[in-house]
């Protein structure tokens, strides 16, 4: 049982034509024993490559990977005591479920056959696939295959557990179900886990900690809510959350923000947080925008409803500042609220909810203030 540590890990691929691609750029991360780290980021950002370096399937261009006190850079996969679940499951199609699950134990340990049988059967029982042991993978449903892939990994009782988009081949309902199951399983196993996904829901709901990668570089590591509410930069702010945060380019003019569409007065402490930065981006999440039929208080603006997307439990309302062809921004309101396209509404953007970013570096200068309410106080 040990922590997994990545120190300045870099991976450079050299293509045949001599081009160098830095797939992973100087990434440092610590995954504590028992911790569940979710690695997210857009396609091609280096998630899989990072995972494969940890597994030993890809060499490390520079930096160190340590498991406990051991540097594992030069170790072969089988010496690392790591188990991995692949996106495609990579089940051996010619072997039964039992053979698939035993294979790793037979190859990498001296465990006697009877004990292997026992281990495999108890793991299968735990995963609810005890009665499928004699089937071939092709005769299993997607969810069952997924469980076999998990089973194959857990029987080996590894130090570190790696999962590369393990749910992406399942349909929505099954994915939701497996998500919860996986989470429970990891809690039970209590082993350091890296989980790669590009699904936000998975990232938010499963992670102890999220690590966000972009273009090979680590953007932020934090709890899901930290990343949601206190994004380190523009990229994280736009990547996390659906519908995405609304952004307005803004210039600071004294204690006022000036955008193409509106002016926004800032409180003193907000101004202080900005320091010298004048070229800014104002961000606000759709659910933080309040819509009212009338009103003219501070931070309220006359807008026109462009489109309403009713989602049942909520409505996404696309708003524009007067001009129909200007870019719209989105506010999310309760599904029971009725708004019609074309209607005029007042949008209120509360100051405690705004994010401000430096436009050139993208760095967050000021994140929203969090005043979490306990359930007790809220009405619903």
């Amino acid at each position, binding site marked *: 049982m040990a922590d997994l540590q990545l120190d300045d890990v870099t991976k450079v*691929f*050299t*293509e*045949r034509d*001599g081009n160098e691609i830095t797939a992973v750029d100087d990434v440092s991360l610590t995954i504590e024993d028992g911790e569940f780290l979710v690695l997210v980021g857009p396609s091609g950002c280096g998630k899989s490559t990072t995972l494969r370096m940890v597994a*030993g399937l*890809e060499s490390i261009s520079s930096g160190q990977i340590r498991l406990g006190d051991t540097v594992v850079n030069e170790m*072969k*996969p089988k010496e690392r005591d790591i188990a991995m679940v692949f996106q495609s499951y990579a089940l051996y199609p010619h072997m039964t479920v039992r053979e698939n699950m035993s294979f790793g134990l037979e190859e990498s340990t001296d465990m006697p056959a009877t004990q292997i049988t026992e281990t495999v059967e108890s793991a299968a029982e735990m995963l609810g696939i005890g009665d499928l042991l004699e089937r071939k993978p092709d005769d299993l449903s997607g969810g069952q295959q997924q469980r076999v892939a998990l089973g194959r990994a857990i029987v080996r009782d590894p130090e570190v557990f790696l999962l590369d988009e393990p749910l992406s081949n399942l349909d929505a309902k099954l994915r939701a179900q497996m998500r919860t199951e996986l989470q429970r399983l990891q809690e039970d196993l209590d082993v350091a886990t890296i989980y790669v996904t590009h699904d936000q829901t998975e990232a938010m709901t499963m992670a102890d900690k999220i690590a966000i990668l972009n273009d090979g570089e680590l953007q932020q590591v934090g709890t899901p809510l930290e990343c949601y509410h206190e994004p380190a930069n523009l990229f994280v702010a736009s990547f996390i959350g659906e519908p995405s945060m609304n952004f307005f380019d803004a210039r600071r003019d004294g204690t006022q923000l000036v955008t193409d569409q509106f002016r926004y007065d800032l409180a003193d402490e907000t101004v202080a947080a900005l320091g010298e930065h004048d070229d800014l981006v104002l961000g606000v999440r759709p659910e933080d925008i309040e819509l009212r039929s009338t009103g003219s208080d501070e931070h309220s603006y006359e807008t026109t409803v462009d489109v309403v997307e009713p989602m049942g439990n909520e409505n996404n309302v696309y708003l524009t500042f007067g001009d129909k062809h200007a870019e719209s921004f989105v506010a999310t309101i309760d599904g029971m609220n009725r708004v019609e396209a074309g209607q005029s509404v007042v949008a209120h953007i509360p100051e405690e909810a705004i994010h401000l970013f430096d436009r050139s570096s993208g760095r967050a200068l000021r994140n929203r203030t969090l005043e979490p309410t306990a359930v007790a106080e809220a009405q619903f």
Partner: protein
Amino acid sequence: MTADTTTEPEPEDDVNGDGDDNDETQGHLARLSPGRIALYGGLLALVAAYLSPLYSGLTTAFKSQDAYRETSPLQPPIDGFTVDPWLTAASELAFAMLNSFALTIPAAVLSALFGSLAAYGLTKVDWRGQALVLVLFLAAVFIPYQAVLVPLRQFWSMVGLSQIHPRGELVELLITHVAYGIPICTILFRSYYQTLDGELIEAARLDGASLARIYRKIVLPLSIPMFAVTLIYQFTQIWNDFLFALVLLSNRANYVVTLELNALAGSMATDYSVQMAGAFIAALPTILVYILFGEQFAKGQTM
């Protein structure tokens, strides 16, 4: 497997086979492990083994009669180098090469065309029973031609093209090759058409095109890669055919190159130099096709 595969390669010296080995650019020479050296050694030894018949044939073909008698076939033709065998063989085989071309090219084109038409009719248009027809086609690919030789002879002697015109035999052979080429061409085209997006054809139907127009405007242009494969396959098959020619051709003037090469070998039994030169000349077109279109050739072979 040779012993070297038991040696574990470095982590990224991957054993998997997706063909594009990006790792090799990191300098194979720099990290040639003993396993790799053994691997290349084995591969080169196999190359030697595979090329040796051609090598000994080639050296022999350039040797004069004396040099051939006196030197080992391993030895390159330095003393007693001559191109006479090539000239002799070429003059003997010239007319048969022409016959082969006149036969092979139209036969290959026709069988590919028929195959493509049949595959289109049997793949992209849905009606019951097409699977049965396809089973017949598939089986026909594998039928030993011995099972049809006698009736084939009978059939053509009843039709009697050879009595109408001295070249009639070649036409008989041509039609025969087309007929026996259709099954494999159909199977090849069909497996290709199955990978073609069915929605393409449906889109064209919605666009108002008839089956014939769809074939002409959509399927045919998209089949060009497969035409390359089938044409190359059929070209080599028909060029290399011996059995049908042996049975159907009786007039020497109509001999195709395989027959004439066999005749040459028979009449120059002791002159290996001429035989070898002749063999190379007869093989030249298919070797050229193979070298120029190796990819398509390989595809045709694997169906």
